[in-house]
């Protein structure tokens, strides 16, 4: 692609740089836009495309007929279909058009951009080498790293190499709290490199920088902008990565670019492909502290839902909770649904009134999580992994109703992954209370055992 020096490019092109937006979102007179389109400086695309089933949204990739609706549109005077999935980014309908610049302004090179004095473990160093190679080859790589392996540091050497080459790097994740948490770590590691943080509440969203951290939705703004695309789906529990993130990444990266997936719990298909060598992968089976992952124990607890209706908890579950309270050891108790969370919390509060229940949509969630982190709450009943930052050093975890469909293999692996992350307390109890063992439970346990075996085989364990 021929790249104009930035002084020659029109203000429209440099303003749009690397973004694809709705035509009406451009703060320029319509005549200017039309002229730029005419001159080939801007490209226009329809917002929606007709498919055999219904429609496809060009911006977010949605093609589920249930997520389209229509309305009598005052702009075009006819019935317009619109995408309900990416409304946050401005409504995109049959009469709206997407605009992007035909050329991308070049990025600067950064000499020795990297100032990090931490040390990588042997397993991390091996994976970091694989990431460097993928970035160099502009190829695809999956980094399969257990919970607590220290994934972020693995990326640093490869990112540094890309920045030295004048390439643009983007890390995208479904979760806004991950973006917020990573920003200071990246700023510290790359102090002289401009970093843009894209999420719904940030002023700099959409601004192209050599380093970009973005949520799924905001990534929809970028088009053919990045040389290195990293998809971090850490702790996306309980929902596996939305197909939207995949799509957004495919649009945001350049055609010639590298694609790095970071995951603790790849899907079964991916696991199989990795094992058979059909998917290029770097596996980190051990935690940074070199102790094996705690293996979940299964314990039958009868028809707990029926007991709960009668206002009681299964004996062994209650005993497990009482034990932690006695020992003064903090614990998570996972339950499948919000109404069950409320019932269980009410029952446990009779035993200890400082126990709290929190679910993902609870308005006072942040407060309770902070109280738990401060040690003011002995046990947290919850339906979901709350935040990535909730790594309480010394903790046990139990699941009540581990047989429920919501607890997939990856959800259970993530739950078990809460325990023993800190080097000072690498062990802990992981217990799945169930009313009938499921395949997901068995696979989760096997998943963890396999990782421990491989870590041992590769000599990555300290004990």
């Amino acid at each position, binding site marked *: 692609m021929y790249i104009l020096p930035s002084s020659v490019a029109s203000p429209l092109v440099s303003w749009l740089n690397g973004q694809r937006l709705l035509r009406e979102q451009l703060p320029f007179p319509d005549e200017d836009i039309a002229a730029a389109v005419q001159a080939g400086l801007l490209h226009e695309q329809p917002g929606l495309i007709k498919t055999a089933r219904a429609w496809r949204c060009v911006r977010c990739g949605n093609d589920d007929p249930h997520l389209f609706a*229509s309305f009598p549109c005052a702009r075009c005077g006819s019935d317009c279909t619109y995408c309900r999935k990416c409304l946050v980014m401005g409504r995109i309908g049959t009469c709206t058009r997407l605009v992007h610049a035909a050329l991308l302004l070049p990025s600067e090179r950064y000499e020795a951009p990297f100032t990090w004095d931490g040390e990588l473990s042997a397993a991390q160093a091996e994976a970091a080498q694989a990431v460097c190679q993928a970035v160099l080859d502009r190829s695809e790589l999956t980094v399969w790293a257990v919970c607590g392996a220290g994934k972020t540091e693995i990326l640093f050497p490869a990112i540094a190499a890309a920045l030295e080459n004048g390439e643009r790097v983007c890390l995208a994740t479904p979760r806004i709290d991950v973006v917020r948490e990573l920003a200071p770590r990246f700023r510290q590691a790359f102090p002289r490199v401009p970093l843009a943080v894209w999420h719904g509440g940030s002023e700099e969203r959409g601004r192209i920088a050599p380093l970009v951290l973005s949520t799924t939705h905001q990534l929809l703004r970028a088009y053919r902008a990045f040389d290195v695309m990293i998809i971090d789906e850490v702790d996306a529990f309980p929902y596996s990565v939305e197909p939207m993130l995949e799509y957004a990444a495919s649009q945001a990266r350049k055609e010639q670019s590298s694609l790095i997936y970071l995951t603790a719990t790849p899907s079964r298909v991916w696991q199989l492909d990795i094992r058979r060598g059909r998917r290029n992968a770097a596996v980190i089976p051990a935690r940074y502290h070199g102790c094996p992952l705690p293996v979940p124990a299964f314990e039958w607890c009868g028809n707990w839902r029926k007991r709960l209706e009668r206002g009681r908890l299964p004996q062994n579950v209650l005993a497990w909770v009482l034990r932690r309270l006695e020992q003064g050891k903090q614990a998570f108790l996972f339950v499948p649904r919000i109404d069950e969370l409320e019932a269980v919390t009410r029952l446990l509060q009779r035993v200890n009134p400082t126990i709290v229940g929190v679910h993902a949509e609870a308005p006072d969630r942040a407060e309770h999580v902070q109280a738990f982190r401060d040690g003011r709450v002995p046990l947290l009943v919850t339906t979901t992994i709350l935040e990535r930052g909730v790594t309480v050093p010394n903790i046990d975890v139990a699941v009540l109703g581990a047989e429920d469909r919501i607890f997939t293999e990856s959800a259970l692996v993530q739950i078990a992954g809460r325990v023993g992350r800190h080097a000072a307390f690498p062990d802990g109890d992981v217990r799945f209370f169930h009313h009938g063992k499921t395949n997901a439970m068995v696979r989760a346990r096997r998943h963890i055992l396999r990782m421990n075996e491989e870590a041992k085989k590769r000599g990555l364990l300290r004990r």
Partner: protein
Amino acid sequence: MNCLLCHSPYNPIANWRQLLFLEDFDVLCPRCRGAFQLIDGRLCEMCGRSLEESAPSICADCLDWEEDERWRGVLAKNRSVYVYNEWMKEVIALWKFRGDYVVAEAFRQPLTAVFRRDFGSGWQLVPIPLSAERLHERGFNQAEALARLLPLPSVPWLARKHSEKQSKKSRRERLETDNPFFLSGHPPINGKRIVLIDDIYTTGVTVRHAARVLLEAGAAEVGSLTLVRA
């Protein structure tokens, strides 16, 4: 079926009656529906907000209006469906500002019920218009979307001048400013009973400005029906 708002699956058939009499089923799951709060109990006779059992039949705000001789009797009455709670604020933001038009479907049944209870077929529906600029920006007029839910046709008898956003001004200032509404063409208003349709009744200025234009053009009576009483 999946809920129109939260997209989670639910069973829309609440009872056998619904199946037997082919009643419309709800497009919302019970959780989302339950988060809206209907206005019920004793109402202010003028503006339709709920009142304490012991309160006088007209609220203090409406008393202000009726004591002002320039505005006395301009609005026959207002009736609204829902309370403006946090949930409603969120839903309105999605519907009106993000432009998720189809959300209006969730209001069809309750809005129709209030229309039948407090107005009826003797009234002519007129949606509160948007200015041409705002209409272009938003793509649709939310008041018109509500009017379309009702079982009678509505008529575009009013138009609106573009003015700065209302919320920046005080009530007094808004009253003094020029009326933004004017007649659209030469509609056959004479002797008609008209019900204005809008999304929110806050201070009552908007519907009274519109009502005055219609009364001056010969309407017999003008009331208003809004989704929300703020």
